[in-house]
Protein backbone atom coordinates (compact mmCIF):
# COMPACT_ATOMS: atom_id res chain seq x y z
CA UNK A 1 0.00 0.00 0.00
CA UNK A 2 2.72 2.41 1.06
CA UNK A 3 4.68 1.59 -2.09
CA UNK A 4 1.65 2.13 -4.33
CA UNK A 5 1.03 5.58 -2.87
CA UNK A 6 4.69 6.50 -3.26
CA UNK A 7 4.68 5.15 -6.78
CA UNK A 8 1.60 7.21 -7.68
CA UNK A 9 3.15 10.40 -6.30
CA UNK A 10 6.50 9.85 -8.01
CA UNK A 11 4.89 8.87 -11.31
CA UNK A 12 2.71 11.97 -11.20
CA UNK A 13 5.72 14.18 -10.51
CA UNK A 14 7.73 12.65 -13.34
CA UNK A 15 4.85 12.96 -15.84
CA UNK A 16 4.01 16.55 -14.90
CA UNK A 17 7.62 17.66 -14.93
CA UNK A 18 8.28 16.04 -18.30
CA UNK A 19 5.23 17.83 -19.73
CA UNK A 20 6.56 21.08 -18.30
CA UNK A 21 9.92 20.30 -19.83
CA UNK A 22 8.60 20.12 -23.40
CA UNK A 23 6.12 22.96 -23.04
CA UNK A 24 8.16 25.52 -21.10
CA UNK A 25 9.05 28.73 -22.88
CA UNK A 26 12.46 29.42 -21.40
CA UNK A 27 15.26 26.84 -21.75
CA UNK A 28 16.23 27.08 -18.08
CA UNK A 29 12.72 26.04 -17.02
CA UNK A 30 12.94 23.04 -19.34
CA UNK A 31 16.33 22.03 -18.00
CA UNK A 32 15.26 22.32 -14.37
CA UNK A 33 12.04 20.39 -14.83
CA UNK A 34 14.06 17.74 -16.64
CA UNK A 35 16.17 17.43 -13.48
CA UNK A 36 12.97 16.89 -11.49
CA UNK A 37 11.93 14.17 -13.96
CA UNK A 38 15.28 12.42 -13.67
CA UNK A 39 15.31 12.52 -9.90
CA UNK A 40 11.76 11.19 -9.64
CA UNK A 41 12.68 8.36 -12.03
CA UNK A 42 15.70 7.64 -9.84
CA UNK A 43 13.33 7.47 -6.88
CA UNK A 44 11.18 4.99 -8.84
CA UNK A 45 14.28 2.82 -9.25
CA UNK A 46 14.86 3.05 -5.51
CA UNK A 47 11.28 1.92 -4.95
CA UNK A 48 12.02 -1.47 -6.57
CA UNK A 49 15.28 -1.81 -4.60
CA UNK A 50 17.44 -1.08 -7.65
CA UNK A 51 19.90 0.87 -5.56
CA UNK A 52 22.70 1.05 -8.09
CA UNK A 53 20.44 2.30 -10.88
CA UNK A 54 19.06 4.90 -8.46
CA UNK A 55 22.44 6.27 -7.54
CA UNK A 56 23.86 6.11 -11.06
CA UNK A 57 20.83 7.92 -12.43
CA UNK A 58 21.49 10.74 -9.98
CA UNK A 59 25.28 10.85 -10.42
CA UNK A 60 25.35 10.69 -14.22
CA UNK A 61 22.14 12.25 -15.48
CA UNK A 62 21.07 14.63 -12.75
CA UNK A 63 24.54 15.37 -11.44
CA UNK A 64 26.82 15.51 -14.46
CA UNK A 65 24.96 15.83 -17.76
CA UNK A 66 22.25 18.24 -16.66
CA UNK A 67 24.70 20.47 -14.83
CA UNK A 68 26.69 20.75 -18.07
CA UNK A 69 23.50 21.66 -19.93
CA UNK A 70 22.63 24.29 -17.33
CA UNK A 71 26.17 25.57 -17.52
CA UNK A 72 25.84 26.08 -21.26
CA UNK A 73 22.44 27.77 -20.87
CA UNK A 74 24.06 30.14 -18.40
CA UNK A 75 26.89 30.84 -20.82
CA UNK A 76 24.50 31.71 -23.65
CA UNK A 77 22.76 34.29 -21.47
CA UNK A 78 19.51 34.10 -23.45
CA UNK A 79 17.32 37.17 -23.11
CA UNK A 80 13.55 36.88 -23.18
CA UNK A 81 13.26 38.85 -26.44
CA UNK A 82 15.67 36.44 -28.16
CA UNK A 83 13.42 33.45 -27.58
CA UNK A 84 11.28 32.29 -30.53
CA UNK A 85 7.72 33.52 -30.65
CA UNK A 86 5.63 30.46 -29.85
CA UNK A 87 2.17 31.81 -30.60
CA UNK A 88 0.58 28.53 -31.71
CA UNK A 89 2.43 26.32 -29.25
CA UNK A 90 -0.65 25.12 -27.38
CA UNK A 91 -2.44 24.29 -30.61
CA UNK A 92 0.58 22.36 -31.84
CA UNK A 93 0.83 20.44 -28.59
CA UNK A 94 -2.88 19.61 -28.64
CA UNK A 95 -2.80 18.53 -32.28
CA UNK A 96 0.23 16.31 -31.92
CA UNK A 97 -1.06 14.72 -28.75
CA UNK A 98 -4.32 13.82 -30.54
CA UNK A 99 -2.33 12.29 -33.39
CA UNK A 100 -0.09 10.18 -31.17
CA UNK A 101 -2.89 8.95 -28.88
CA UNK A 102 -3.57 5.70 -30.83
CA UNK A 103 0.17 4.92 -30.97
CA UNK A 104 0.56 5.46 -27.27
CA UNK A 105 -2.44 3.20 -26.63
CA UNK A 106 -0.68 0.45 -28.60
CA UNK A 107 2.51 1.12 -26.64
CA UNK A 108 0.71 0.93 -23.28
CA UNK A 109 -0.94 -2.31 -24.33
CA UNK A 110 2.45 -3.77 -25.31
CA UNK A 111 4.00 -2.71 -22.02
CA UNK A 112 1.15 -4.26 -20.04
CA UNK A 113 1.73 -7.56 -21.84
CA UNK A 114 5.49 -7.48 -21.38
CA UNK A 115 7.31 -9.95 -19.19
CA UNK A 116 7.99 -7.50 -16.35
CA UNK A 117 4.38 -6.29 -16.13
CA UNK A 118 2.90 -9.79 -16.06
CA UNK A 119 5.33 -11.39 -13.61
CA UNK A 120 6.11 -8.46 -11.34
CA UNK A 121 9.71 -7.92 -10.32
CA UNK A 122 10.42 -10.63 -7.77
CA UNK A 123 14.22 -10.64 -7.89
CA UNK A 124 15.58 -8.88 -4.81
CA UNK A 125 18.95 -8.41 -6.48
CA UNK A 126 17.64 -6.52 -9.51
CA UNK A 127 19.62 -3.33 -10.10
CA UNK A 128 22.07 -3.76 -7.25
CA UNK A 129 25.71 -3.06 -8.03
CA UNK A 130 26.72 -6.74 -8.04
CA UNK A 131 23.86 -7.78 -10.28
CA UNK A 132 24.44 -5.00 -12.81
CA UNK A 133 28.18 -5.63 -12.84
CA UNK A 134 27.86 -9.37 -13.27
CA UNK A 135 25.33 -8.98 -16.09
CA UNK A 136 27.40 -6.36 -17.90
CA UNK A 137 30.70 -8.20 -17.65
CA UNK A 138 29.50 -11.71 -18.44
CA UNK A 139 26.42 -11.70 -20.63
CA UNK A 140 26.89 -8.36 -22.37
CA UNK A 141 30.67 -8.02 -22.35
CA UNK A 142 31.04 -7.55 -26.14
CA UNK A 143 28.35 -4.85 -26.55
CA UNK A 144 29.69 -3.16 -23.41
CA UNK A 145 33.22 -2.93 -24.79
CA UNK A 146 31.93 -1.82 -28.21
CA UNK A 147 29.90 0.95 -26.61
CA UNK A 148 32.91 2.11 -24.63
CA UNK A 149 34.99 2.27 -27.84
CA UNK A 150 32.16 4.25 -29.43
CA UNK A 151 32.20 6.71 -26.54
CA UNK A 152 35.97 7.02 -26.82
CA UNK A 153 35.62 7.77 -30.54
CA UNK A 154 33.03 10.44 -29.80
CA UNK A 155 35.26 11.95 -27.12
CA UNK A 156 38.34 12.13 -29.35
CA UNK A 157 36.19 13.43 -32.20
CA UNK A 158 34.91 16.25 -30.02
CA UNK A 159 38.44 17.13 -28.93
CA UNK A 160 39.83 17.19 -32.49
CA UNK A 161 36.89 19.22 -33.79
CA UNK A 162 37.35 21.82 -31.07
CA UNK A 163 41.12 21.93 -31.70
CA UNK A 164 40.59 22.65 -35.39
CA UNK A 165 38.85 25.93 -34.67
CA UNK A 166 41.77 27.37 -32.74
Amino acid at each position, binding site marked *: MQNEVLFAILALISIVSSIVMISAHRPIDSALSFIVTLISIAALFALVNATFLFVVQ*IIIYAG*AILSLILFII*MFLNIKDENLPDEKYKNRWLLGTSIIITPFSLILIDLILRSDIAVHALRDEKFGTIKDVGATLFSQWILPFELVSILLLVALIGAVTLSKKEA
Partner: protein
Amino acid sequence: MSTFLILLPLILTLLFSLATVPILVWMERRVAALIQDRLGPNRCNVNGIRLGGIVQSVADMMKLVFKEEFLPSHIKNKFYYLAAPSIAFMSSFLTFMVIPYADNVTINEQTFTMQALPTDLGVLWFLAFAGLGVYGIILGGWASHNKYAILGSMRATAQVISYEVAMGLSLVSMLITYGTISLNEMVTYQSQSFFIFPAWGIILQPLAAIIFIVTAFAETNRAPFDAAEGESEIVAGYHTEYGAMKFGLFFVAEYIAMAASGALIVTLFLGGYQLPYLSTQDLINHFELVLWLIITFAAVTSLLFLAWVKKHNILVMNGLNETKIYTTVIVGFTLFAIIVMSYYALGFGNASTVGVMLLQFAVFTVKLFFLHFLFIWVRWTLPRFRYDQTQKLGWNILLPLSLVNIFITAIVVVGVNYGN
Protein backbone atom coordinates in the same frame (compact mmCIF):
# COMPACT_ATOMS: atom_id res chain seq x y z
CA MET B 1 15.95 1.15 23.45
CA SER B 2 15.83 -0.17 19.87
CA THR B 3 14.02 2.97 18.64
CA PHE B 4 16.70 5.03 20.30
CA LEU B 5 19.47 3.05 18.61
CA ILE B 6 17.79 3.57 15.23
CA LEU B 7 17.41 7.30 15.86
CA LEU B 8 20.89 7.69 17.32
CA PRO B 9 22.80 7.93 13.99
CA LEU B 10 20.25 10.49 12.76
CA ILE B 11 20.79 12.57 15.89
CA LEU B 12 24.54 12.25 15.44
CA THR B 13 24.21 13.38 11.82
CA LEU B 14 22.41 16.50 13.02
CA LEU B 15 25.10 17.07 15.64
CA PHE B 16 28.02 16.53 13.27
CA SER B 17 26.53 18.69 10.54
CA LEU B 18 24.27 21.44 11.91
CA ALA B 19 25.43 21.70 15.50
CA THR B 20 29.12 21.82 14.64
CA VAL B 21 28.71 24.83 12.34
CA PRO B 22 29.06 27.42 15.15
CA ILE B 23 32.04 25.47 16.49
CA LEU B 24 33.57 25.39 13.02
CA VAL B 25 33.09 29.13 12.60
CA TRP B 26 34.75 29.61 15.97
CA MET B 27 37.58 27.24 15.04
CA GLU B 28 38.07 29.03 11.76
CA ARG B 29 38.50 32.37 13.48
CA ARG B 30 40.62 31.17 16.35
CA VAL B 31 42.92 29.09 14.14
CA ALA B 32 43.23 31.99 11.72
CA ALA B 33 44.17 34.15 14.68
CA LEU B 34 46.66 31.53 15.87
CA ILE B 35 48.32 31.42 12.44
CA GLN B 36 48.40 35.21 12.18
CA ASP B 37 49.69 35.56 15.75
CA ARG B 38 46.70 37.31 17.30
CA LEU B 39 43.88 36.26 19.62
CA GLY B 40 40.69 36.12 17.59
CA PRO B 41 37.19 36.59 19.02
CA ASN B 42 37.30 36.03 22.79
CA ARG B 43 35.48 38.96 24.38
CA CYS B 44 31.81 38.12 23.71
CA ASN B 45 30.30 36.73 26.92
CA VAL B 46 27.11 35.81 28.72
CA ASN B 47 27.50 37.12 32.25
CA GLY B 48 31.23 36.52 32.19
CA ILE B 49 31.17 33.08 30.59
CA ARG B 50 32.97 33.15 27.23
CA LEU B 51 33.56 29.47 26.40
CA GLY B 52 36.76 30.50 24.65
CA GLY B 53 34.79 32.66 22.21
CA ILE B 54 32.12 30.19 21.06
CA VAL B 55 29.51 32.63 22.39
CA GLN B 56 30.58 34.95 19.57
CA SER B 57 29.62 32.52 16.81
CA VAL B 58 26.33 31.69 18.53
CA ALA B 59 25.61 35.43 18.55
CA ASP B 60 26.49 35.63 14.84
CA MET B 61 24.11 32.76 14.08
CA MET B 62 21.31 34.50 16.02
CA LYS B 63 21.96 37.65 14.05
CA LEU B 64 21.64 35.81 10.73
CA VAL B 65 18.41 34.15 11.79
CA PHE B 66 16.71 37.30 13.06
CA LYS B 67 17.90 39.66 10.33
CA GLU B 68 15.23 41.17 8.11
CA GLU B 69 14.49 39.08 5.02
CA PHE B 70 15.20 41.27 2.03
CA LEU B 71 14.43 40.51 -1.60
CA PRO B 72 16.27 42.66 -4.15
CA SER B 73 13.74 44.28 -6.49
CA HIS B 74 15.52 43.29 -9.70
CA ILE B 75 15.07 39.57 -9.06
CA LYS B 76 12.71 38.23 -11.73
CA ASN B 77 12.73 34.54 -10.86
CA LYS B 78 11.85 34.57 -7.20
CA PHE B 79 11.32 30.83 -7.06
CA TYR B 80 14.79 29.97 -8.35
CA TYR B 81 16.33 32.71 -6.26
CA LEU B 82 14.80 31.25 -3.11
CA ALA B 83 15.26 27.60 -4.09
CA ALA B 84 19.01 27.93 -4.68
CA PRO B 85 20.19 28.17 -1.06
CA SER B 86 17.85 25.39 0.03
CA ILE B 87 19.17 23.08 -2.71
CA ALA B 88 22.75 23.81 -1.67
CA PHE B 89 21.89 23.18 1.96
CA MET B 90 19.88 20.01 1.38
CA SER B 91 22.38 18.31 -0.86
CA SER B 92 25.31 18.98 1.42
CA PHE B 93 23.27 17.77 4.38
CA LEU B 94 22.24 14.57 2.56
CA THR B 95 25.87 13.65 1.79
CA PHE B 96 26.34 13.09 5.52
CA MET B 97 23.74 10.32 5.65
CA VAL B 98 25.98 7.36 4.83
CA ILE B 99 28.95 8.03 7.11
CA PRO B 100 29.32 5.23 9.69
CA TYR B 101 29.95 6.64 13.17
CA ALA B 102 30.60 3.28 14.82
CA ASP B 103 30.61 -0.39 13.95
CA ASN B 104 27.29 -2.21 13.66
CA VAL B 105 25.90 -2.73 17.15
CA THR B 106 24.30 -6.05 18.06
CA ILE B 107 22.08 -6.00 21.14
CA ASN B 108 19.73 -8.88 21.95
CA GLU B 109 20.39 -10.48 18.55
CA GLN B 110 19.29 -7.30 16.79
CA THR B 111 21.83 -5.48 14.64
CA PHE B 112 21.74 -1.71 14.27
CA THR B 113 23.79 0.14 11.68
CA MET B 114 25.40 3.32 12.97
CA GLN B 115 24.86 5.30 9.79
CA ALA B 116 21.81 7.48 9.27
CA LEU B 117 20.69 5.58 6.16
CA PRO B 118 21.11 1.81 6.42
CA THR B 119 22.28 1.45 2.84
CA ASP B 120 25.34 -0.09 1.25
CA LEU B 121 25.64 2.58 -1.43
CA GLY B 122 28.35 4.32 0.55
CA VAL B 123 30.63 6.49 -1.53
CA LEU B 124 28.26 6.46 -4.50
CA TRP B 125 25.60 8.20 -2.40
CA PHE B 126 28.16 10.80 -1.40
CA LEU B 127 29.15 11.42 -5.03
CA ALA B 128 25.50 11.67 -6.10
CA PHE B 129 24.51 14.36 -3.64
CA ALA B 130 27.81 16.22 -3.75
CA GLY B 131 27.13 16.51 -7.49
CA LEU B 132 23.60 17.84 -6.93
CA GLY B 133 24.98 20.63 -4.74
CA VAL B 134 26.18 22.36 -7.92
CA TYR B 135 22.59 23.28 -8.78
CA GLY B 136 22.33 25.51 -5.75
CA ILE B 137 25.36 27.44 -6.96
CA ILE B 138 24.25 27.56 -10.61
CA LEU B 139 20.73 28.69 -9.75
CA GLY B 140 21.90 31.17 -7.15
CA GLY B 141 24.24 32.82 -9.61
CA TRP B 142 21.77 32.74 -12.47
CA ALA B 143 18.75 34.02 -10.57
CA SER B 144 20.70 36.88 -9.00
CA HIS B 145 20.91 38.77 -12.33
CA ASN B 146 24.27 40.10 -11.37
CA LYS B 147 27.51 39.87 -13.33
CA TYR B 148 29.62 39.03 -10.31
CA ALA B 149 27.20 36.34 -9.23
CA ILE B 150 27.16 34.76 -12.70
CA LEU B 151 30.95 34.85 -12.90
CA GLY B 152 31.26 33.30 -9.45
CA SER B 153 28.77 30.56 -10.15
CA MET B 154 30.39 29.76 -13.49
CA ARG B 155 33.78 29.44 -11.85
CA ALA B 156 32.34 27.27 -9.10
CA THR B 157 30.45 25.03 -11.52
CA ALA B 158 33.37 24.51 -13.87
CA GLN B 159 35.61 23.75 -10.92
CA VAL B 160 33.23 21.29 -9.30
CA ILE B 161 32.53 19.47 -12.58
CA SER B 162 36.21 19.13 -13.48
CA TYR B 163 37.34 18.07 -10.02
CA GLU B 164 34.52 15.55 -9.74
CA VAL B 165 36.28 13.53 -12.46
CA ALA B 166 39.56 13.27 -10.57
CA MET B 167 37.68 12.63 -7.32
CA GLY B 168 35.67 9.78 -8.82
CA LEU B 169 38.78 8.22 -10.34
CA SER B 170 40.76 8.40 -7.11
CA LEU B 171 37.77 6.75 -5.41
CA VAL B 172 37.85 3.95 -7.99
CA SER B 173 41.34 2.95 -6.86
CA MET B 174 40.09 2.87 -3.27
CA LEU B 175 37.16 0.70 -4.33
CA ILE B 176 39.58 -1.71 -6.03
CA THR B 177 41.70 -1.84 -2.87
CA TYR B 178 38.83 -2.42 -0.46
CA GLY B 179 36.71 -4.50 -2.82
CA THR B 180 33.46 -2.94 -1.62
CA ILE B 181 31.46 0.27 -1.86
CA SER B 182 29.96 0.02 1.62
CA LEU B 183 31.68 2.51 3.89
CA ASN B 184 31.30 0.35 6.98
CA GLU B 185 33.02 -2.61 5.31
CA MET B 186 35.81 -0.26 4.24
CA VAL B 187 36.35 0.80 7.84
CA THR B 188 36.33 -2.82 8.97
CA TYR B 189 38.96 -3.55 6.33
CA GLN B 190 41.15 -0.79 7.78
CA SER B 191 41.29 -2.44 11.21
CA GLN B 192 43.82 -4.95 9.82
CA SER B 193 47.50 -4.19 9.90
CA PHE B 194 49.79 -3.78 6.92
CA PHE B 195 53.29 -4.94 7.93
CA ILE B 196 53.83 -2.83 11.06
CA PHE B 197 51.41 -0.04 10.13
CA PRO B 198 47.62 -0.03 10.53
CA ALA B 199 46.09 -0.73 7.11
CA TRP B 200 44.57 2.72 6.78
CA GLY B 201 43.76 4.03 3.33
CA ILE B 202 46.36 6.75 3.56
CA ILE B 203 49.09 4.13 4.04
CA LEU B 204 47.82 1.70 1.42
CA GLN B 205 47.08 4.38 -1.15
CA PRO B 206 48.98 7.60 -0.37
CA LEU B 207 48.57 8.98 -3.89
CA ALA B 208 44.80 8.42 -3.94
CA ALA B 209 44.60 10.02 -0.49
CA ILE B 210 46.39 13.16 -1.65
CA ILE B 211 44.30 13.41 -4.82
CA PHE B 212 41.08 12.88 -2.90
CA ILE B 213 41.93 15.46 -0.25
CA VAL B 214 42.87 18.06 -2.88
CA THR B 215 39.70 17.41 -4.86
CA ALA B 216 37.64 17.54 -1.67
CA PHE B 217 38.98 21.02 -1.04
CA ALA B 218 38.02 22.01 -4.57
CA GLU B 219 34.57 20.39 -4.39
CA THR B 220 33.69 22.34 -1.26
CA ASN B 221 35.01 25.60 -2.75
CA ARG B 222 37.38 26.01 0.15
CA ALA B 223 40.62 27.92 -0.08
CA PRO B 224 42.99 27.59 -1.94
CA PHE B 225 40.30 26.80 -4.53
CA ASP B 226 37.85 29.54 -3.59
CA ALA B 227 38.23 31.67 -6.71
CA ALA B 228 34.42 31.33 -6.97
CA GLU B 229 34.06 33.83 -4.16
CA GLY B 230 37.31 35.69 -4.60
CA GLU B 231 36.44 38.91 -2.87
CA SER B 232 39.19 40.91 -4.57
CA GLU B 233 37.78 40.16 -8.03
CA ILE B 234 34.09 39.35 -7.94
CA VAL B 235 32.75 40.68 -4.60
CA ALA B 236 31.35 37.50 -3.03
CA GLY B 237 30.67 35.35 -6.09
CA TYR B 238 27.40 33.50 -6.38
CA HIS B 239 25.94 34.74 -3.08
CA THR B 240 26.54 38.44 -3.70
CA GLU B 241 22.80 39.16 -3.87
CA TYR B 242 21.83 37.08 -0.86
CA GLY B 243 21.25 38.37 2.64
CA ALA B 244 20.05 37.28 6.06
CA MET B 245 19.21 33.58 6.40
CA LYS B 246 19.29 33.00 2.63
CA PHE B 247 22.97 33.83 2.80
CA GLY B 248 23.11 31.91 6.05
CA LEU B 249 21.96 28.74 4.28
CA PHE B 250 24.75 29.04 1.70
CA PHE B 251 27.19 29.70 4.50
CA VAL B 252 26.02 26.73 6.56
CA ALA B 253 25.93 24.56 3.43
CA GLU B 254 29.58 25.31 2.78
CA TYR B 255 30.54 24.28 6.29
CA ILE B 256 28.41 21.14 6.19
CA ALA B 257 29.95 20.21 2.85
CA MET B 258 33.35 20.67 4.43
CA ALA B 259 32.33 18.56 7.42
CA ALA B 260 30.93 15.84 5.14
CA SER B 261 34.08 15.67 3.03
CA GLY B 262 36.13 15.61 6.21
CA ALA B 263 34.02 12.73 7.50
CA LEU B 264 34.43 10.87 4.20
CA ILE B 265 38.20 11.41 4.24
CA VAL B 266 38.31 10.05 7.78
CA THR B 267 36.24 7.04 6.75
CA LEU B 268 38.16 6.28 3.57
CA PHE B 269 41.72 7.10 4.51
CA LEU B 270 42.11 7.48 8.26
CA GLY B 271 40.49 4.31 9.50
CA GLY B 272 37.08 5.81 10.27
CA TYR B 273 36.03 5.08 13.83
CA GLN B 274 38.80 2.52 14.38
CA LEU B 275 41.68 2.89 16.74
CA PRO B 276 44.87 1.69 15.04
CA TYR B 277 45.52 -2.08 15.33
CA LEU B 278 42.33 -2.66 17.38
CA SER B 279 39.24 -4.12 15.77
CA THR B 280 35.79 -3.80 17.34
CA GLN B 281 35.95 -7.38 18.59
CA ASP B 282 39.30 -6.79 20.34
CA LEU B 283 37.87 -3.75 22.09
CA ILE B 284 34.79 -5.65 23.27
CA ASN B 285 36.88 -8.59 24.50
CA HIS B 286 39.28 -6.44 26.53
CA PHE B 287 36.73 -3.85 27.52
CA GLU B 288 37.80 -3.57 31.17
CA LEU B 289 41.44 -2.89 30.28
CA VAL B 290 40.28 -0.30 27.76
CA LEU B 291 38.19 1.37 30.45
CA TRP B 292 41.12 1.61 32.85
CA LEU B 293 43.20 3.21 30.10
CA ILE B 294 40.42 5.71 29.39
CA ILE B 295 40.13 6.54 33.10
CA THR B 296 43.86 7.29 33.31
CA PHE B 297 43.69 9.29 30.11
CA ALA B 298 40.67 11.31 31.34
CA ALA B 299 42.31 12.10 34.68
CA VAL B 300 45.61 13.18 33.10
CA THR B 301 44.08 15.29 30.32
CA SER B 302 41.64 17.09 32.58
CA LEU B 303 44.43 17.91 35.05
CA LEU B 304 46.60 19.23 32.21
CA PHE B 305 43.67 21.21 30.84
CA LEU B 306 42.95 22.71 34.25
CA ALA B 307 46.57 23.79 34.62
CA TRP B 308 46.40 25.33 31.14
CA VAL B 309 43.18 27.20 31.99
CA LYS B 310 44.71 28.54 35.20
CA LYS B 311 47.76 29.78 33.39
CA HIS B 312 46.12 31.34 30.33
CA ASN B 313 42.64 32.45 31.37
CA ILE B 314 43.84 35.74 32.85
CA LEU B 315 41.32 38.22 31.47
CA VAL B 316 39.18 39.59 34.31
CA MET B 317 35.57 40.08 33.26
CA ASN B 318 32.55 41.41 35.11
CA GLY B 319 30.04 38.83 36.28
CA LEU B 320 30.85 35.27 37.30
CA ASN B 321 34.37 34.04 37.94
CA GLU B 322 35.02 32.07 34.78
CA THR B 323 38.07 30.03 35.84
CA LYS B 324 36.33 28.86 38.99
CA ILE B 325 33.24 27.69 37.09
CA TYR B 326 35.30 25.84 34.48
CA THR B 327 37.31 24.14 37.21
CA THR B 328 34.14 23.03 39.01
CA VAL B 329 32.50 21.77 35.82
CA ILE B 330 35.58 19.92 34.57
CA VAL B 331 36.41 18.35 37.93
CA GLY B 332 32.80 17.36 38.50
CA PHE B 333 32.37 15.89 35.03
CA THR B 334 35.66 14.00 35.15
CA LEU B 335 34.86 12.57 38.59
CA PHE B 336 31.39 11.52 37.44
CA ALA B 337 32.79 9.89 34.30
CA ILE B 338 35.53 8.12 36.27
CA ILE B 339 33.01 6.79 38.80
CA VAL B 340 30.69 5.52 36.06
CA MET B 341 33.59 3.95 34.17
CA SER B 342 35.10 2.29 37.25
CA TYR B 343 31.68 0.83 38.07
CA TYR B 344 31.86 -1.05 34.76
CA ALA B 345 35.62 -1.58 34.86
CA LEU B 346 35.42 -3.35 38.22
CA GLY B 347 32.92 -5.73 36.67
CA PHE B 348 29.68 -4.71 38.40
CA GLY B 349 27.85 -4.38 35.11
CA ASN B 350 28.29 -5.33 31.49
CA ALA B 351 28.09 -2.54 28.96
CA SER B 352 30.90 -3.50 26.61
CA THR B 353 28.89 -3.14 23.36
CA VAL B 354 27.50 0.28 24.18
CA GLY B 355 30.80 1.35 25.71
CA VAL B 356 32.77 0.42 22.61
CA MET B 357 30.17 2.21 20.50
CA LEU B 358 30.64 5.39 22.55
CA LEU B 359 34.42 5.02 22.34
CA GLN B 360 34.18 4.73 18.56
CA PHE B 361 31.99 7.84 18.38
CA ALA B 362 34.68 9.66 20.35
CA VAL B 363 37.48 8.41 18.10
CA PHE B 364 35.51 9.42 15.01
CA THR B 365 34.84 12.88 16.44
CA VAL B 366 38.51 13.43 17.28
CA LYS B 367 39.59 12.41 13.78
CA LEU B 368 36.86 14.55 12.22
CA PHE B 369 37.95 17.61 14.17
CA PHE B 370 41.54 16.99 13.17
CA LEU B 371 40.35 17.09 9.55
CA HIS B 372 38.45 20.33 10.23
CA PHE B 373 41.64 21.75 11.65
CA LEU B 374 43.48 20.64 8.50
CA PHE B 375 40.91 22.35 6.28
CA ILE B 376 41.25 25.59 8.24
CA TRP B 377 45.03 25.31 8.46
CA VAL B 378 45.31 25.00 4.68
CA ARG B 379 42.91 27.88 4.17
CA TRP B 380 45.02 30.28 6.17
CA THR B 381 48.36 29.00 4.87
CA LEU B 382 48.07 28.72 1.10
CA PRO B 383 47.23 31.66 -1.15
CA ARG B 384 44.30 31.38 -3.54
CA PHE B 385 45.03 29.72 -6.89
CA ARG B 386 44.36 31.70 -9.99
CA TYR B 387 41.40 30.31 -11.91
CA ASP B 388 43.36 28.87 -14.85
CA GLN B 389 45.84 27.32 -12.44
CA THR B 390 42.96 25.55 -10.72
CA GLN B 391 41.75 24.07 -14.01
CA LYS B 392 45.27 23.11 -15.06
CA LEU B 393 45.89 21.33 -11.78
CA GLY B 394 42.64 19.41 -12.10
CA TRP B 395 42.90 18.26 -15.70
CA ASN B 396 46.64 18.11 -16.35
CA ILE B 397 47.97 16.78 -13.08
CA LEU B 398 45.33 15.16 -10.89
CA LEU B 399 43.43 13.36 -13.66
CA PRO B 400 46.48 11.57 -15.20
CA LEU B 401 47.83 10.81 -11.74
CA SER B 402 44.60 9.18 -10.64
CA LEU B 403 44.43 7.17 -13.89
CA VAL B 404 47.98 5.90 -13.33
CA ASN B 405 47.05 5.10 -9.76
CA ILE B 406 44.06 3.01 -10.86
CA PHE B 407 46.29 1.14 -13.30
CA ILE B 408 48.95 0.36 -10.68
CA THR B 409 46.34 -0.57 -8.06
CA ALA B 410 44.59 -2.93 -10.44
CA ILE B 411 47.87 -4.66 -11.33
CA VAL B 412 48.86 -5.04 -7.67
CA VAL B 413 45.44 -6.31 -6.60
CA VAL B 414 45.28 -8.83 -9.43
CA GLY B 415 48.86 -9.92 -8.68
CA VAL B 416 48.20 -10.41 -4.98
CA ASN B 417 45.01 -12.35 -5.63
CA TYR B 418 46.76 -14.43 -8.31
CA GLY B 419 49.42 -15.44 -5.79
CA ASN B 420 46.79 -16.70 -3.34
